[in-house]
């Protein structure tokens, strides 16, 4: 299972991240280009990808729009 976390600070390949409970943990960020303030997806102590916050908000907005306007196939 991978869990999103907020990058608080960086030190080489290590980063301090917050999983949302206010507890800070060290994770390895050598697989991603992350900076403080980014969200990363953490799996077994490694950040495996950054989470694109802007894209997430756009996606949600887009879905709402699509669902509101989309013609049902065959109707």
């Amino acid at each position: 299972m991978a869990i999103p976390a907020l990058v608080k600070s960086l030190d080489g390949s290590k980063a301090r991240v917050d999983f949302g409970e206010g507890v800070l943990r060290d994770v390895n960020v050598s697989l991603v280009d992350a900076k403080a303030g980014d969200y990363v997806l953490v799996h077994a102590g490694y950040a495996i990808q950054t989470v694109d916050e802007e894209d997430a908000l756009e996606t949600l907005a887009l879905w709402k729009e699509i669902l509101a306007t989309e013609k049902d196939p065959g109707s």
Partner: protein
Amino acid sequence: MSEKLRFRDPELAKEIVQKMRKITPKGEHVKFCHVCGTHEWTITHYGLRSLLPRNVEVIAGPGCPVCIVPAAEIDEAVQLAQKGVVITCFGDVLRVPGSQMSLLEAKAEGADVRVVYGVSDAVEIAKREQDKEFVFSAVGFETTAPSTAIEALGNPPENFSFLVSHRLIPPAMELLLGVGDLNISGFLAPGHVSAIIGMKPYELFPRVYRMPTVVAGFEPIDVLMGIYMLLKQHTQGTALLENEYSRVVKWEGNPKALEVMDQAFAVTGGNWRGIGRLPNSALKLRNQLVAYDTREKYDVHIEQGKDILLGCECHLVIIGKIKPNECPMFMKACTPAKPVGACMVSNEGTCRVWAKTTASQPIN
């Protein structure tokens, strides 16, 4: 994670479900398959199956990396543990049954078996305790393999080696298409594996097999939206590769992760518990890292183990042929406290996910 990003909006969920109902073809049973323990968790935990139109079904394929580790590979770890080597592993691996015993049982008999959160913790322990030999049981799909790769390439100490049990997801998906009477109409592809491998490895499913394929994330809205996208393709008679989880999954995946995986591992054939041997589905350390390959270092090569105990139906649960509650042992002889099969051991195992949530959630 900021609330806005949680993808749990009940209003939106309702809208998606209404849309689904409108486009679902009548008089036809539509079955989609996911291959991810976390998808199963989201679907079961949030009772999503009960929201779907009656004739739409989502089944769980081989999405639990711990469940599919063959008994022979647990036996290898147990054998080494009994010889005095320290075995480090993820917590989930501890109770996975081997042919004779699990690592937990070996530990109870005095072997030194330690649970770690990640491979880097195991390496750190080995550096601190240089008078002992350490093995890390490297279990996991493409999500986990890059972390093993980094540590293997990062000059681990001489007293450390990797018992690699990594497996690859796309070959397992291809296998499912060959299983008679499974009749899948689309794949909900796993988000976290895809964060690493990207979209390209799934191209063959729509192209060669005409199988709609949607990569989806793990929040309830992600899963519902993914199912809706599959349903839409199915209704329209198209077969496309789509990405619901674009906030994490890029077309090219994670190039850095793919590069370290390629440097550290070669792709080879591998056995899957309950499935058998799948070509090009496993990873093996490359020749230049052979000093860190546990099997070579200690010459342990167990080919055959006892994968499925008498009466356990894990081999059918793993490929989605039956639901956990169709196994006669489910919640009788086999419970999370006393698991019989591997599917009841891991938090990502379908039987365990069902066992932990059936009490509170309706499941179709």
